[in-house]
Structures are given as structure tokens and as C-alpha cells.
């Protein structure tokens, strides 16, 4: 049942994603066709600038649209009248949540792939080849300088970005879920919760920076400076892994909050 639910979730995403991304690709194609008439004339400059601006605007709009779609699907499917049907399905609350998380992540990945394809279309092939050569050259330099650590850094950064993306979705789900516990103005409450969360994280960040600067005056960090300088590779790996684990833990917290509210405190409209 979980598989079927996931399949339908992805299908409903594709119903919106496909036309949006096709439009983006279409605009990229127009931009490429304009470049066939490359010249020094003012008209060509104007046409090219317009095509590039249109492509950039289309990309921004499609990205925002996907983000809104993920949020709206979660809200409508679980917290509005649709919820009455959704929760009759023979699927656990946790599975419902996982379907939403996987669906939103898949939509994000499809959007990224479509953006890459459209960039490939709008850029000249020779330019793409030269960009590819630059990437290879810089990677080779990095490999010469830091060896195999370079590949591990890439993997760690990609994983960190991936977890960060899921974390953002889960944060919004948690805010919506907390907002649903109110009797009235639930969406406004959800937005309010998001801003409170932002304030708290910013306060913690500033407090942490303040404590760090106070401690640095005492010279406590100097003891660690030599160690970090000597083992900077290992230290960087540890920091990246640690930050990913922290992110993962935060995702877990958001997941638990959302799960608990849906499982115990659900109050559909």
C-alpha cells in the first residue's frame, strides 16, 4: 500500500512538474535559438538579454512553484477535507509522512535535473565543454593538493546539502502541524511558529558567537589551534560529518513533532 501511495503522490507532483519544467526547457530553447543569430548589433544584444532574463525569471518561478507545491500538497492532503479520505487509507501515520517527504524530495531532484537540462540547452556546447574542462582541471589541482580527501569532501557536502533540503521541508511540515493545533487562523499560526523558530535559531547563533568571542579572548582556543593546524583534513571531515549528524537529529525532531501532532492531535476542518 505504501508503494501505491508513493506512486500516486509522485504522479500528482508530475502533473504540475512536467508542464512547468517543459516551459522552462522551452524558454531555454528559445534562448539558444536566439544565439544562432549572434552578431555585434544592438538588436541581437537586446534579444539575447531578454531571452536570458526570461530564462532566469522562468527558473525562479519554477523553483518557487515547486516549493509552494510541496507545502500545499502536505497541507491539503493531511489537514483539510482531503484528510478525511487520506486517513482512511490502510497506511500508518509514519508512512503518510514518509510519502510526503519522499515525494517532496523527488520533486526537488526532478526540478534540479530539469534546471541542469535547461542550462545545457541554453549554453553553447563549446562553452559547456570548456566549463567541463575547468571543472576537471580544478578537481585535478584539488586532488594534487589534498588527495583522496577531495572526493570525500564532495560526498560529505552533497550529503549535507541533501539533508539540509529535507530538513527545510520537515521544518515547514512541523510548523504547519503545530499551527493545526490552534482553533482558528491555523495558517497564520503556522507562519507565526516559523518566525518564532527563526528568532530562536538566530538568538542561539548570536549567543554562540558571543560565547566564542569571549572564550577566544581567554586564549582557550589557542590550545586547539595547533591541533587543528596539524590535523586540518581530519578536523574538516569531522566538522562536516558532525554538522550532517546535527542536521539529521534536527530532522528527527521535526519528524517526531509532526508525527506526534498528526497521530494524537489531528483536528481536521
Amino acid at each position, binding site marked *: 500500500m505504501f508503494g501505491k501511495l508513493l506512486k500516486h503522490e509522485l504522479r500528482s507532483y508530475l502533473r504540475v512538474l*512536467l508542464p512547468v519544467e517543459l516551459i522552462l*526547457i522551452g524558454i531555454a530553447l528559445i534562448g539558444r535559438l536566439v544565439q544562432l543569430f*549572434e552578431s555585434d548589433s544592438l538588436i541581437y544584444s537586446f534579444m539575447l538579454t531578454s531571452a536570458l532574463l526570461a530564462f532566469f525569471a522562468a527558473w525562479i518561478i519554477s523553483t518557487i512553484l515547486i516549493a509552494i507545491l510541496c507545502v500545499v500538497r502536505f497541507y491539503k492532503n493531511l489537514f483539510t477535507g482531503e484528510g478525511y479520505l487520506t486517513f482512511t487509507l490502510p497506511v500508518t501515520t509514519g508512512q503518510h509522512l514518509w510519502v510526503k517527504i519522499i515525494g517532496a524530495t523527488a520533486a526537488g531532484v526532478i526540478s534540479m535535473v530539469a534546471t541542469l*537540462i535547461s542550462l545545457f540547452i541554453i549554453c553553447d556546447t563549446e562553452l559547456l565543454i570548456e566549463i567541463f*574542462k575547468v571543472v576537471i*582541471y580544478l578537481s585535478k589541482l584539488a586532488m594534487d593538493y589534498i588527495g583522496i580527501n577531495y572526493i570525500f569532501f564532495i560526498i560529505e557536502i552533497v550529503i549535507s546539502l541533501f539533508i539540509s533540503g529535507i530538513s527545510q521541508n520537515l521544518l515547514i511540515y512541523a510548523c504547519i502541524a503545530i499551527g493545526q493545533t490552534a482553533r482558528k487562523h491555523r495558517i497564520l499560526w503556522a507562519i507565526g511558529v516559523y518566525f518564532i523558530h527563526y528568532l530562536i535559531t538566530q538568538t542561539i547563533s548570536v549567543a554562540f558567537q558571543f560565547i566564542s568571542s569571549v572564550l577566544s579572548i581567554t586564549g582557550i582556543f589557542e590550545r586547539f589551534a595547533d591541533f587543528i593546524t596539524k590535523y586540518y583534513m581530519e578536523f574538516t571531515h569531522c566538522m562536516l560529518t558532525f554538522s550532517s549528524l546535527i542536521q539529521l537529529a534536527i530532522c528527527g525532531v521535526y519528524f517526531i513533532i509532526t508525527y506526534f501532532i498528526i497521530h494524537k492531535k489531528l483536528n481536521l476542518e
Partner: protein
Amino acid sequence: MSKRVIKAISLILATVLICSVLTGCNALDTLRDTHAKLDNEGNIVYKGNTYMRIDASSNKYFSPNAEHYLVATEPDVPLLLSYFLNTYMGYITDDDIIMVLGPGMMSADYSDDIFYCREDKYKEVKKKLSQEFLPEVYGYSYYYYDDNGDEVSGVYTFTKEQTKAMKEVIASPALEDKELFYSDDYVDIYEATEDLLFKKEALRLFYSDEGYFVENGDNEYSVHAVPEEMTDIFDEILETQRLSDEYWGSEYEFYYDIDEDEI
């Protein structure tokens, strides 16, 4: 997978394939035009030709007119990074024979210009470097921007008639120091070989409403007035310089002791 999704994916793939064939980028062509690569033997390869380093220290008049910008990088540096990771940067002559290079972004040295010569002309240029400088033409360099904002630069080379007229002026009696005269502008005239590889600045041509004057600072310093009957020839010589003056404005002043009666 539904038919609609398959159709969409096929359409995207077809678009990508078609676009990969449509190539042409002027900006890349411009970059390629200014990108040379060092080879393992310390030579430079540019547009399929090999350039070898040539020592020009023996001939102080070696001064090729190199105006086409280029950079020389290590062989593996990609085109898009050539302006940032170059070993040498400098210029090449319009006939692509001589490179005049200086230290690039990746070079830790500061040195005078170094010269590279195209392999097929190497012996010829090396022979010329060892020969005595025998000027064949006069000329001057110019540089300004036209109405479209495009750079216009080059060397104006005198015709035979103009060269003969200049020689006559230099050979005429010099003016004596008497009183001040005022001249708005001047241009440095050099003597050069016909291929413009060797140049020596020797003359300065002053021009004003009062007439033309040639200052010869070669062996003995002297100033010669251009006779009225040669004004047309010197008008022709300075036609290009005046276009440059229109752009840059008149900024130069020269004061020289001269007898007004002599003008």
C-alpha cells in the same frame, strides 16, 4: 511509465541532442585568438605555429609593433582560466611573427620584455638582430577610439615622397636660439626598417598654426622649419595623428627658443 511522461522525456532528449549540435560562440573564439600554450621544450605554440625564444639584447633598436594581446599558459590550463593562470602575457605582431611578452599572473618574476619568434622566421630575425640598424622608412604610432568606441591603433608609415621631404627638412639649415615660440602638439617620428622590427626615435614633429617644425635629437640637437611648399605633404603625414588628437584633445605644449624672423 505513462505515455505522456515517455513523450515528454523523448521531447526533452531530442531538444538536448539538437542543441548540442548548434554551436558557435564569439566570446570563446576571441579567447582562443588570445590563448597560446607553452610546450615541454620551453617554446610557445600559438595557432598551430611554434615560437622560440629569441635573445634581442644585442640590438637596442629591436622594437616590433606588437598590438594583438595574448597570454601564454601551461599546456593543461583550460581556455576559460587562461586570463587568470597565465605564465606570460603580452602582445604579438599583426603578421604573427614576433611575440613581446612579460611575466604573467602565475609568474613570480619581474623582468623586462622577452621575445619569441615564429620558428620559420627565426633564422631570418636572428640574422637581422646581428646586423647594423639601417633605417628605411619613417613612421609614428597612433592610438585612439573612433565614434563607435572601437580602438584604432597602428603605425603610420611614410610614403617615399614623404620620407624624401622629411630628409630634405632635416638636411636644411637648423634654426638658431633666439626667441620663444609656442606649439600645441607634437608627434614622435621614428626611423625604422621596412618590416618595422627595428626602430629608433630620432625626430619630433611639432605642429601648430605657425607651421611645422622638426626637432632632430640624434647626434647634434637641432630644430628645422618645414618650408611652406612642403606644408601639403606634412598635412598628409599628420592626417592620422589629427584623428588621434581629436579624441585625446590637445594637451602638449612646447616652448623653444627660436627667432621669430626665422619662422
